[in-house]
């Protein structure tokens, strides 16, 4: 039996049934990482000793009945922008290469309480800015489906690790598509929850009003189980509020009869790869065969999501990343003359090009005289996009479309033209602007065998519907 091929829930069931010990699971996972990671480079740090020690602890708690969570004993990995106490949390940046947070993120506390075992931290685009994981200071992650291709980004390490069986389950973060797009490129499932579902405390901020943490795994059920663990209000995050209904795993009934699904016609226009388009239409047919109704409709204004997104995200990023100044933590230049040089030279050397570019865009759009034309305008566009989705959800239970316009790009292809890279976010950013939940589900491959992902977008706090649809789709074939 190849343990690492199991889904997280299957593994946990075997552990509960005493067919597999937690230590065996952890050893199998570490062995797989050992075997594969020199090739794919999903991890920024591997916590073998910590994981082995923790496995014993978790086993004891499972044995004495104190740990009964559906994920107890499962080895997991965490994107490196989520704080882990005493363990390097680098954001894949030179700036935070040696940063060890003095606390655990709320989601890490939740996962630990549920009995998962963190085996490592995952590579990403620097400070989550990028769509390819190529902006990582520690080097690119390669797509396990084709090592000449990018895994997507920014949670490229998280998606690739799940795809390469280097992790059963990972936590990523999504600001403009950073969970869904790499999930799509690597052929795994990833969900970005509704803004405010999962605490951001301990997630190193890129764009605070858009960032959400979410799981990436090899099944919708694993994502649902993980979401059950990490969702919930947190008194440390003002924007994370209590919901009445969680219970995502229980919502996976397999029954989507009568579900109304809308497909925005505009999503299938210019710029969409033909093979991706075909796959989504085929997926729509599968959903129909399961009893859902699928029809095309017009989703207004979504074209303007990319400019609005880059204004808002860059503005917030320029502010959020100002704290990296060489004083309190992180990199500091060694030779300097005066305070201004500490600031400027530390930041110029500590940050990579993409981060600097977004900080400059952010500073520009907020600078004196431009606020109304850019930032305020973007907030109005955001309001209109939200309104468009609100209208759509009066008619539909969820919205179906591609996750990304293409399959995974060749390594090195995207870095030269940042604008082109930004345009690839066309289907994902509007979901963040409107704060909605979105899931990417594998729906076939192109002729080179590269995975294609479909995206299901839900109502605010409609995670259950999109997870149910995703799960039903997975089991259809």
């Amino acid at each position: 039996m190849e343990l690492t091929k199991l889904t997280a829930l299957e593994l946990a069931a075997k552990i509960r049934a005493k067919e597999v010990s937690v230590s065996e699971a952890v050893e199998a996972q570490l062995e797989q990482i050992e075997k594969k990671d020199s090739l794919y480079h999903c991890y920024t740090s591997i916590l073998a000793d910590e994981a082995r020690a923790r496995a014993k602890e978790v086993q004891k708690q499972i044995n004495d009945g104190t740990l009964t969570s559906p994920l107890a004993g499962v080895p997991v990995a965490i994107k490196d922008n989520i704080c882990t106490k005493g363990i390097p949390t680098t954001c894949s940046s030179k700036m935070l290469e040696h940063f060890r947070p003095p606390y655990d993120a709320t989601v890490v506390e939740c996962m630990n309480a549920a009995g998962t075992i963190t085996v490592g931290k995952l590579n990403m685009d620097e400070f989550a800015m990028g769509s390819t994981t190529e902006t990582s200071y520690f080097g690119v992650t390669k797509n396990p489906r084709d090592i000449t291709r990018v895994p997507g980004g920014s949670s490229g390490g998280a998606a690739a690790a799940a795809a390469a069986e280097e992790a059963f389950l990972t936590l990523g973060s999504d600001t403009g598509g950073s969970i869904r797009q790499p999930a799509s490129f690597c052929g795994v499932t990833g969900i970005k929850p509704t803004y405010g579902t999962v605490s951001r405390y301990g997630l190193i901020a890129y764009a605070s009003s858009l960032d959400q943490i979410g799981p990436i795994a090899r099944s919708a059920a694993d994502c649902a189980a993980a979401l059950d663990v990490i969702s919930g209000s947190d008194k440390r995050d003002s924007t994370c509020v209590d919901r009445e209904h969680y219970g995502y795993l229980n919502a996976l009934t397999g029954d989507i009869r009568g579900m109304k699904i809308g497909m925005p016609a505009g999503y299938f226009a210019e710029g969409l790869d033909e093979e991706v388009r075909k796959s989504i239409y085929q997926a729509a047919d599968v959903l129909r065969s399961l009893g859902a109704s699928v029809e095309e409709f017009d989703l207004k204004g979504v074209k303007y999501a990319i400019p609005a997104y880059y204004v808002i995200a860059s503005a917030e990023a320029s502010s959020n990343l100002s704290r990296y100044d060489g004083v309190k933590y992180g990199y500091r230049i060694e030779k300097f003359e005066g305070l201004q040089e500490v600031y400027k030279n530390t930041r110029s050397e500590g940050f990579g090009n993409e981060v600097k570019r977004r900080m400059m865009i952010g500073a520009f759009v907020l600078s004196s005289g431009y606020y109304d034309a850019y930032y305020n305008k973007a907030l109005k566009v955001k309001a209109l996009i939200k309104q468009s989705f609100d209208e759509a959800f009066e008619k539909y239970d969820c919205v179906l479309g591609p996750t990304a316009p293409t399959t995974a790009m060749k390594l090195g292809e995207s870095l030269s033209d940042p604008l082109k890279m930004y345009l690839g976010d066309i289907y994902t950013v509007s979901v963040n602007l409107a704060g909605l939940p979105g899931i990417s589900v594998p729906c076939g491959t192109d002729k080179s065998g590269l995975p294609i992902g479909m995206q299901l977008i839900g109502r605010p706090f409609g995670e259950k519907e999109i997870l149910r649809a995703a799960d039903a789709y997975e089991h259809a074939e």
Partner: protein
Amino acid sequence: MKAYETVIGLEVHVELATKTKIFCGCSTAFGGAPNTHCCPVCTGMPGTLPVLNKKVVEFAMAAGLAMNCTITQKCKFDRKNYFYPDLPKAYQVSQLYLPICRNGGIEIEVNGVKKTIGIHEIHMEEDAGKLVHDPWEDVTLVDYNRCGVPLIEIVSEPDMRSADEVIAYLEKLKLILQYLGVSDCKMQEGSLRADINLSVREVGAPEFGTRTEMKNMNSFKAIARAVEGERKRQIELLEYGKKVVQETRRWDDNKDTSFAMRSKEDAQDYRYFPEPDLVPIEISDEWLSEIRGRQPELRDEKKKRYEKEYEIPSYDAAIITGSKRMADIFEATVAICHKPKEVSNWLMVETMRLMKEAEMDSEELNLSPEKLAALIGLLDAGTINRPVAKEVFEKVFKEDVDPKEYVEKNGLGMVQDEDLLVSTIERIIAENPQSVADYRSGKEKALGFLVGQTMKAMKGKANPGKVNEVLKERL
């Protein structure tokens, strides 16, 4: 020389008297070793988030209501972005677009003339840390203990015209805030700091002149001198046909002049935008009326009540209510001993004298109402005489001794033994035949001498009235 008018507006920063910081559960206690009242949130650690202290909003509302402001029932926070080592996140969470209070005003009185000074707005924000120069290595040390302490910034309209008005405004502001319990306003600890915006113009000119700003002034005396000094400097410039430059200046109280601050390397472009980590504040009518209902009696009302209820002179009432601390002690003491005039006298005379001696601010006053009431009780019961009472009071004031214990321990109680008094007086009469003769021949002064001799013989512990009485009888 032409006639000039000075135009002054103030931005006053006040640290609020909450127990914890504005966005985290760290203590706001003053002092403490560097960086010991800090946590990942207030030191801006990556990944941390702010959660607003409800008390800060309530204090800001209370201040706004007391200053006749309109409360912005839908308000929110914004980020003010700039780099400085005392600001760990490189942005200050403040309010630009929708400050919590707007359009208020308070009345001041200078030389009998009343005037209203407009309050443009009051907004909530977080304080910055402290930078300390390290003389050994020529570096600056950064302490974040004050970082995240809640502030309100009270922005006046440019309605003041003289240093006297500025001081009257600040005194009034301080009293309102102290009475509300919103701030201790300890200027020496930096809990009240003023930025002075000042310009001059020819009398009758329609436009304001170019203004300068003097930041972080924290003593009334320095503020008065700074206003005067800067006014003179600007008038001199204009008289010589020069221009006033809009800039930030630092007042050097020792040199009695202001200096242009080294202009910061880059432009002041704070790139304000709505703080995404905090949610909007919506103040319901109910919440607002709850706060309104909780407003305590402020100074002006209290003064009137003292005059009427306690029948103390207007002058005394003004002095006592001139300090929240003093008024609190007054009321607490009266509540125990029911002798308002006696309490007022102790505060007006002995307390003021001792405070002056110790160069103490009235807010630092730490006089126990129980002990003052006990002292008054001892005096009233005839256990001690007034000179002894003053001596005991000084001990109470300085060392917080228990008056009764102290009197007993030091044997300061008046001698109640009539026989001893009579025998002592008889001895004094016998020893001072000349004074006795003088008195009998009509020299009233001689009696005083004899009283003094008796008191001395009784080591000050006799009741002077009683001594007088018995002496007269015997003579």
